[in-house]
């Protein structure tokens, strides 16, 4: 039977994929084709740029930007055993229509291990998960000793995917060795980096894999209870995880004496109220306990004294979703993927000025160039690549010289960025790096919990300095202040938020110092972004007095009669740049 897999991830839903699904359901029923085609509403396919997307098996024909009105034609073609050409993905450089998903450049270099079920199974149906080897790893694990399970994870070389990159097996070992009446497994689904959504997609698209990862971790460390801490802004993920928990309970994958063993495990969902700092493990535990989400000093580490003062193990969604994969394929085979110190795959959220935005799972060690240009399809609008911000607001900027850098935990750190949760924002020549740093800093400043002095007071001062610079009021000493204060905040802050918040400043200062200097010394923003530093001027000799600029100016700052060169009144100009865009004669310049 052929399957029609409609993407039900948040991105495609906002593009009306629900309506597409419903239209397909009606059409199949109208034509009596239910026996021939099985319709499924799946999790995210990753290629959000092209949503709503549909995958049709067994040939994996991949249809993009499908609208409800396309459905009759699509069904008509499918019924005939044909492909509906018009909705196939078009390769932008060659204009060629691509027949199958694995030939689409966005998917070609991906290695979808963790995301293997996303977009394939119905996340609200446990049978779908079971039929794709779901809970097989748990069965395998329950026949092993907990120490053997930990050894498997250690051998696999799995490291935390939430940002820190700490070896997961070692972390489990610490928690295993702590003695207590109760222990906890916590799944950190408080994904907060702007632009990152891999944990959301996994929770929405393959919730049972997350539960299975937690179960295995629970068995390994000797915990009977698990919490999923997920942000309330992810309602669909909360819904699908809740359904998955209920189904797993009903089938005996959660509860007492699981699968005939002596292992008991239950999972609760705790919704976070949206503070970025609650992604930090100690603040997260405070939040579960009903306290203000503020980090506490470590040691004691959660493995010794965590939630409710009991030994706890916190892993991020993606890390936990890797666990069943490792147990299924074997740790040694898993360890063959990636680099020497970074094993397996990593999911990146590709956003910014890149042609193909979306989620891509790639083997560790892939180069930045492959991700940006092969998978991402290069910089959008034919502009020039400038930099990529990797690791979200805690990460750093990498430039053209780093394009051939293999992406793994250690080389990224060495280059002044970090893996973070895997946010990858591509920037082109029209991005101002000072403004970029200011943007990320304003995020970190807003999200500081206010507990420790360097982060609470320091990030505000860094932001004020950057604000001065983009407004044209900076002085050269400000650059030294950014550097030294930034370094001291990193050195002395209490938690990971403060310890990484200045990274975007320090890395842009390192690689784009000249751009900062131009803002300060010459009062110029070379990318033409910082409004206070922009002025527009009509070059009289080029102006043909067509009046287009005057018509389009929203603040009526342009004057001029017929056959008379136009003029811009600087006091009225809002520096929006519309006049320059509209001028057919390139007579308006920005200075």
């Amino acid at each position, binding site marked *: 039977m052929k399957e029609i897999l409609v993407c039900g991830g948040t991105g495609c839903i906002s593009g009306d994929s629900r309506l597409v699904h419903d239209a397909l359901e009606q059409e199949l029923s109208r034509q009596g084709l239910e026996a021939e085609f099985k319709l499924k509403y799946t999790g995210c396919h990753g290629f959000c740029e092209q949503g709503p997307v549909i995958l049709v098996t067994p040939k994996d024909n991949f249809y993009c930007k499908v609208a409800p009105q396309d459905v009759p034609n699509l069904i008509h073609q499918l019924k005939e055993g044909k492909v509906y050409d018009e909705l196939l993905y078009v390769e932008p450089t060659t204009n060629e229509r691509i027949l199958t998903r694995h030939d689409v450049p966005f998917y070609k270099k991906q290695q979808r291990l963790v995301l293997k079920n996303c977009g394939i199974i119905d996340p609200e149906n446990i049978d779908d998960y079971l039929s794709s080897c779901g809970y097989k790893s748990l069965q395998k694990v329950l026949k092993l000793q907990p120490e053997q399970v930990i050894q498997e994870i250690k051998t696999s070389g799995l490291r935390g995917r939430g940002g820190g990159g700490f070896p997961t097996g070692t972390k489990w070992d610490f928690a295993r060795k702590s003695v207590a009446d109760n222990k906890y497994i916590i799944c950190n689904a408080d994904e907060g980096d702007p632009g990152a959504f891999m944990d959301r997609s996994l929770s929405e698209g393959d919730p049972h894999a997350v539960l299975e990862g937690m179960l295995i971790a629970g068995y390994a460390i000797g915990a009977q209870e698990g919490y999923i801490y997920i942000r309330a802004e992810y309602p669909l993920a909360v819904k699908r995880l809740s359904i998955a928990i209920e189904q797993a309970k009903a089938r005996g994958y959660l509860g007492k004496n699981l699968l005939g063993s002596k292992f008991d495990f239950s999972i609760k969902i705790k919704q976070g109220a949206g503070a970025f700092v609650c992604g930090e493990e100690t603040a997260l535990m405070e939040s579960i306990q009903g306290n203000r989400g503020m980090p506490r*000093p470590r040691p004691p580490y959660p493995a010794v004294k965590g939630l409710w003062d009991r030994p706890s193990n916190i892993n991020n969604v993606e890390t936990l979703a890797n666990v069943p994969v490792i147990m299924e394929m074997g740790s040694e085979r898993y360890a063959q993927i990636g680099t020497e110190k970074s094993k397996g795959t990593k999911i990146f959220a590709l956003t910014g000025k890149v042609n193909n935005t979306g989620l891509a799972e790639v083997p560790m060690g892939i180069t930045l160039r492959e991700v940006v240009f092969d998978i991402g399809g290069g910089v959008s609008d034919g502009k020039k690549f400038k930099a990529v911000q990797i690791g979200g607001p805690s990460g750093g900027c990498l430039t053209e010289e780093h394009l051939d850098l293999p992406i793994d935990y250690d080389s990224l750190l060495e280059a002044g960025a970090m893996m973070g949760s895997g946010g990858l924002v591509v920037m082109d020549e029209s991005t101002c790096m000072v403004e970029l740093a200011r943007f990320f800093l304003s995020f970190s400043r807003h999200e500081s919990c*206010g507990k420790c*002095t360097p982060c609470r007071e*320091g990030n505000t001062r860094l932001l004020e300095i950057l604000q001065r610079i983009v407004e044209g009021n900076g002085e050269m000493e400000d650059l030294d202040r950014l550097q*030294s*204060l930034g370094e*001291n905040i990193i050195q*002395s*802050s209490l938690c990971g938020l403060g*310890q990484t918040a200045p990274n975007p400043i320090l890395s842009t200062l390192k690689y784009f110092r000249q751009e900062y200097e131009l803002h300060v010394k010459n009062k110029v923003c070379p990318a033409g972004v910082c409004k206070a530093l922009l002025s527009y001027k009509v070059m009289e000799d080029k102006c043909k007095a067509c009046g287009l600029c005057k018509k389009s100016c929203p603040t009526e700052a342009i004057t001029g009669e017929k056959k008379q060169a136009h003029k811009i009144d600087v006091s009225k100009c809002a520096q929006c740049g519309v006049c320059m865009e509209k001028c057919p004669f390139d007579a308006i310049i920005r200075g």
Partner: protein
Amino acid sequence: MVSITINGNQYSVPADYSILKAAEENGINIPTLCYEEGLTITGSCRMCVVEVKGVRKLLASCATPVTEGMEVQTESERVISARRDILRLLIANHDLRCLTCERNGDCRLQDYCYRYKVEDTPYKGDKKHYPIDTDNHFFIRDYSKCIKCGKCVSICAEVNGAHVYDFMERGFDTKVTSAFDDTLQETTCTACGMCVNVCPVGALVEKSVLWEGRPWEVKKVTTTCSYCGVGCQLKLKVKDDRIIGVTADKSGSNLGHLCAKGQFGWEYVHSQDRLTDPLIKRNGVFEKASWEEALTYVAHRLQGILQERGGQAFAGLSSAKCTNEENYLFQKFMRTVLHTNNVDHCARL
């Protein structure tokens, strides 16, 4: 015991010590603002950061336990640079009218700025201003001087149990306040004043000391609180032979903890109405007498009544101001000397 090196010298310290405690006990001073012995360690002010060999970031010495072979630098270049920036950040958001501040000369922030030669701050920008809460009978809250060390929050919750204070808002907007951002008068505050005693700056100040004298003019006299039998140790703040306030004395069994009576109930000492001599009523009028005269009078009367009327004529009421030992002696006296069991105590009333 573990062996650690601090600033190049080897020390042997108990394994459950923090770096801060290990340093302190060996005469090495590490500056702290949020640390207070006996309270939960929050590690929030970051003043006490130190450099530990092999660790990339600086560590808060109050929150980091010692480990065997640990090599610590408490005043390295990196450490001093971080501390200087922390101080510059704090004074950038602090009411710097030190000239008339009651804590001038007795202020940790001031002391550390002096110690690390922080004369001014390069971080000029937004500054928080809050109205001063003077509603409370006993002390003022001036949060434009608060450095958010959180010691008042902790001591109120962990020692008094009143939970009057907590943090409100986040990030730069964080402030210490009480429920519903109300004045202290509207809360469950018991006016124990312990928050005032732990405040390292001039954010919480007793009303009684306002404009009464600079800290260096005030003599601190250790005494025992006379209010009840607990016998708390405290220090009287004395200026020109007059008490102007009280502060904690950690050496006593009360560990510096006080209640409203000991902290603020000392005004009677200078009251004009206070009895300073025994009085004997003669012909309906109280007349001054010596202690010997008074005690002899009482002994005679007790003896007389006992002979005339027997022990049942007596009833004795003792006070919570007396110690356990005094109360024991009192009931013993009533039972064996005055032959009565009619003895009770004010705490039962």
